[in-house]
């Protein structure tokens, strides 16, 4: 685990998040939510600071982070790709689309490509079931994606 030095400003923002929840142990999940919003992910150092601020053990914080699939310890790529695996998308072949992304990017779900460009995650329904299967890259929504179309989507962001 490489150590990333947090900037003073970010560190203060993180501490402010903890303060806004009164440093309450029971608010750990909310604090982690906000912290992930701030950093994009939850590196070890951030967990360590949260543990100190909330007076809980780092092991406990890590336990919560690894329990909930929403939390991640890997930084997101420049272009985060989310494949919807909700019922409608799934029955229309979203799993095959996901497999194609994995193959082309050579990463697993929850990972980031070596060049830092792409990260891959799954989500459950974006409310666009009429367009199933749906893929999101950043904020942009792609509908009726077929496994064959995956390489074109990736190519859009490659350069």
């Amino acid at each position, binding site marked *: 685990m490489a150590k990333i030095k947090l900037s003073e400003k970010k560190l203060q923002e993180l501490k402010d998040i903890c303060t806004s929840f009164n440093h309450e142990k029971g608010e750990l999940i909310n604090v982690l939510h906000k912290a992930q919003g701030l950093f994009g992910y939850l590196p070890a150092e951030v967990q360590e600071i949260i543990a100190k601020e909330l007076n*809980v*053990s780092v092991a406990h914080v890590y336990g919560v982070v690894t329990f909930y699939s929403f939390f991640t310890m890997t930084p997101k790529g420049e272009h985060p790709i989310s494949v919807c695996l909700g019922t409608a998308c799934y029955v229309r072949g979203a799993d095959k689309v996901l497999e194609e992304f994995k193959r082309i990017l050579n990463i697993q779900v929850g990972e980031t490509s070596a060049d830092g460009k792409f990260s891959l995650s799954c989500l459950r329904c974006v409310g666009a079931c009429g367009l199933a299967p749906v893929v999101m890259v950043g904020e942009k929504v792609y509908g009726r994606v077929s496994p064959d179309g995956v390489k074109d989507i990736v190519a859009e962001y490659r350069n």
Partner: protein
Amino acid sequence: MWRMYGEMQIRRNFYQLMRRDEMEMIHLTIDGKPVTAEKGTTILKAASTVGVDIPTLCYFELRDLGIENKPGGCRICVVEVEGRRNLAPACTTKVENGMVVNTHNIRVLNARRTVLELILSDHPAECLTCAKNGNCELQSMAQQLGVRELPYTGEQSTYRKDTSPAIIRDVDKCIMCRRCEMMCNEVQTVGALSAVNRGFMAVVAPAFEMNLEKSTCTYCGQCVSVCPTGALTEVDHSRNVINALADPTKTVVVQTAPAVRAALGEEFGLAPGTLVTGKMAAALRRLGFNYVFDTDFAADLTIMEEGSELLDRLSRYLKGDKTVKLPMLTSCCPGWVNFFEHYFPELRDIPSTAKSPQQMFGPIAKEYFAKKLGIDRKNMIVVSIMPCLAKKYECQREEFKVNGDPDVNYSLSTRELAHLIKSANIDFDSLPEEGFDNPMGESTGASVIFGTTGGVIEAACRTAYELYTGKKLKKVDFKELRGFENIRHATIDFDGLPIKIGIAHGLGNARKLLEDIKEGRNQFHAIEIMACPGGCIGGGGQPYHHGDSEILKQRAAALYREDEGKAIRKSHENPFIIELYKEFLGKPLGEKSHHLLHTKYFDKSAGVFVEE
């Protein structure tokens, strides 16, 4: 007006009391027997009051110490509650009026066995070579429920084995009962272990799944003492000891800690609280140790040094010396030392600088006794028998080595000694009572009670009182310092000078006491802290108590019995200690003592979390 208000208040309190008495009893039926239990009681506990024993696995309790684990995770304790669709876990389901509970009908038995078979489907069937073979609660449960085949096969979760200086984590054998997590977090407040990941991937691990050695683990071993399986065990040094015993060029010396004699017998089927001091000495001699000595001797030495240090600090304090650090904290417990080095490094100049008895024994054996024998310290192997796992780490600390040669080479737990005796085919029960060898085998009653909470400070008071006042104690026993309450306070009258004493056992209680001191909520002159609940008698290396706190009480009672039966009960009256100072050490806190018997502590709070 005020009188009326007062009367109303009294009447209201009275009715509240009445109501509580009436309201709180629940009537139900368990296995056809009528049961009355207080509201809020679980089915498990209500059943035990009428002699119905429901099997449990993840559930764990040490009643008199207020320790309980009931995550309701394993589902072994399921029972049928008539009118309820599914089976209910007895350890977490509360009694209700009119409930009809069946704990052993065919539906329950079948479900219970299926639950166990599913647990076993992800458990390595390595019983023959497992350290817990014969002492494993999962194994006993399989035996009790009559599992004869493993019907569910499939993928098994695998995880790397993690070996630290004292504890081995083999998570493949973990059944996620969470007892260790409860001990580490709630009781000890160490927070080294937590359940991480989820589902099939879930394990109990330190933060970021680092190795235990890198974590904030204190090696108190309480996780090991409650683990139902072989997932958490001690690092076994028996082979090293056997090799040393077989080496004709080595003189092998053994020391036995106070709490071992009160518990070792349990491993041989003797009743808890049976003192086996004489048989233990005989067994060690049969095993081939050249000299059978007693850590109790070193405990007397600890009192001389620590007691003198307390008196020194007190007298300087009374003279108005503002640099004096009070309260003085005891330092004989290595789990506690690790704890304050990790969590209270800013207080590390408060504990006594006196080494623990184990580590005082080492240099006396290798620098004094070896010279007397005319042998080089490298040819002397010092083995300690300890109720403790943190002692394994303590004897490996760099500051306790001379040119790489440790003062104490190996530390074995009470359990390891029992294995050693059994494997050597020694019939423990028929052994004669033998004594220890001299000079380091003679000890006083004060040193024996080191093994239980309150004992160290009582021993210190016996000596400090007489040295301070110059008078003989009329009564040697300080009963006000004894007991099992988590945190205890007492004031001892040193001939007009009131000495305020604090006692805590269990690291969670120690933390509370330390925080009180830091915040200025309480003031003491001296504080005794032991990492394990009950003190060393409940140490991580003792025979497994399986949650029976009566066993701990019996062990403590045994030590007080041995103390009472001793001719000499005050450390400073031990003739061999007097001789040792005369012949070798000089005086307590003197130059030689300082060099051999005192230590310093380190700040371990930083650099724990993130690896480069």
